[in-house]
Each structure stands twice: as structure tokens, then as C-alpha cells.
């Protein structure tokens, strides 16, 4: 079984900082503006939207890693991470762990550099997220039951009525004319069967 990836958030951070500071190189400025890679970006020159640099799956992976290692505050907000969920607490260690990180990803800048993420996050309010059950939250009607579940009561009631008269029905069936065998549920006529009777000669 493969082990879980480590330091994903730190590596992500370094990668984004490198990309943002590429022409200038390392900087000692306390604050850096970076385009939020979790959000789509509008290109005014072409008038088109570029998709986010990280797919939702990768975003979820980073957030999961951040929650496990306590580095959630290093991630930008996005569709998978509400701004209100990002803690403001700083990490215990000022310098990032370099063990386990590929040489190309080792930080040239301090991982804890303050980054201002450019991009507006539009978070949808998921009904029932606070409760933990979103199955029926905000819906007009809950599951009304299967068809057979809805009718079973009515059916059983009708069957009980029919069973009350079953003894009488069976007796009537046993008494009807054996040879002629008319429809067993028909009424027994007082005058006898309407079919032509056997002639006497």
C-alpha cells in the first residue's frame, strides 16, 4: 500500500511563489500578490476564462493534506475551501521541512511569506452542511416511499375484508352444481341454471 504524500501544501506553496516571482527571483518583501490557482481566471485580452490550474480533485487532495498536517492556512480559498474555514493560526515552525521534498521544489523563499490571493471566491451555501446531512436539506419533499409501500396498507385492508367472507365464498363454491360448473363467483339462481335442461326422451 502506497504511503500518503507528505508536505504537499509546502510544495504547492513553493511552486506558486516561484511562478509568481519568476522574473524577479527571490524577494524579501513581506507580502506577495499571487493569482489564486484554485479559481478560474479571466483573460481580458482574449475575453475567455482560463480554467483553474489545480483540478478539484487536486484541490481536495491539498486540503486533505493541509488538515492532516495543520497547514490549511497556507492554502488559498476556493470552491473546496471556504474562506471562513481557513484558520488564522500560524504554524509552530517558521521554516518548512525540507526532508522529503524534491530538490527542484525546495523553498528558495520562506514558505510562510504572506500571500495575497487574487481572485473572488463565490461559495455556494450548501443547505444542511452545518448539520452534516445534505440529503433532504432545502428540498420540498422527502422521499415519499416506494409505490408498493404507499399502497400496502390499502391492499391489506381490502384483503382483510375479502378474507372475512372467504368461508362463505368457499361454501358457495362447494355447493354449486358440480356437473354444470358455471362461473364459481356467479350468483346461485333460485330457479336453477338458465342453460337448456336435458330432454326426457
Amino acid at each position, binding site marked *: 500500500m502506497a504511503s500518503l504524500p507528505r508536505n504537499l501544501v509546502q510544495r504547492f506553496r513553493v511552486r506558486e511563489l516561484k511562478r509568481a516571482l519568476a522574473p524577479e527571483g527571490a524577494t524579501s518583501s513581506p507580502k506577495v500578490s499571487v493569482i489564486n490557482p484554485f479559481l478560474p481566471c479571466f483573460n481580458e485580452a482574449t475575453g475567455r476564462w482560463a480554467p483553474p490550474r489545480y483540478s478539484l480533485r487536486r484541490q481536495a487532495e491539498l486540503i486533505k493534506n493541509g488538515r492532516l498536517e495543520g497547514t490549511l492556512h497556507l492554502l488559498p480559498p476556493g470552491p473546496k475551501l471556504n474562506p471562513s474555514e481557513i484558520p488564522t493560526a500560524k504554524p509552530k515552525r517558521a521554516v518548512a521541512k525540507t526532508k522529503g521534498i524534491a530538490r527542484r521544489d525546495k523553498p528558495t523563499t520562506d514558505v510562510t511569506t504572506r500571500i495575497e490571493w487574487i481572485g473572488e471566491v463565490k461559495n455556494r451555501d450548501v443547505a444542511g452542511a452545518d448539520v452534516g446531512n445534505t440529503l433532504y436539506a432545502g428540498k420540498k419533499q422527502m422521499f415519499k416511499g416506494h409505490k408498493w409501500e404507499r399502497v400496502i396498507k390499502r391492499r391489506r385492508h*381490502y*384483503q382483510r375484508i*375479502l378474507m372475512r367472507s*372467504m368461508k362463505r*365464498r368457499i361454501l358457495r363454491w362447494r355447493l354449486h352444481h358440480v356437473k354444470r*360448473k358455471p362461473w364459481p*363467483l356467479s350468483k346461485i339462481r333460485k330457479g336453477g341454471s338458465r342453460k337448456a335442461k336435458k330432454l326426457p326422451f
Partner: protein
Amino acid sequence: MAAKSKAKSVSFHETEEKSVLTVSLRTLIVRLISTAQTGFFYTKVRRRLGPKLSAVKYDPVVKSRVLFVESRKKK
């Protein structure tokens, strides 16, 4: 084991538009439906020209013996 050959009657009739050859069997498969309206049924074979079947049989839905009558539906 030789297969059972079903007794058949063959008829041929002509109309203005077409001539039709029909084959009809001597027997018929029928359903005996519970009169307790449970939907449970038994199947039986009877002669096509014979009387309609009916019997008192066990219905597992109501867990008792009830009257079963032949269905009026023709397959």
C-alpha cells in the same frame, strides 16, 4: 426419451385477401388467481374446450386456504 407431442388441430381457410393456416392446441395454460386479491396465482393446464378451473388452494400471502378461480384474461 421421446418428447410429448401435443395434440393439434389444423385448419385452413381462405378469404378474399389472403389464405390463412392456423394451428390450435388441444390444451390451454391458465392461471388460477386468488380471490383474496393478493396477486398470488397458480398455473394449470386444461382442455381448451373444457370447463373453467377453480380450486381451494393455499395462498402464502394471507397464509390460509382460499378459493382460486381461473383468470378471464386470454394470453
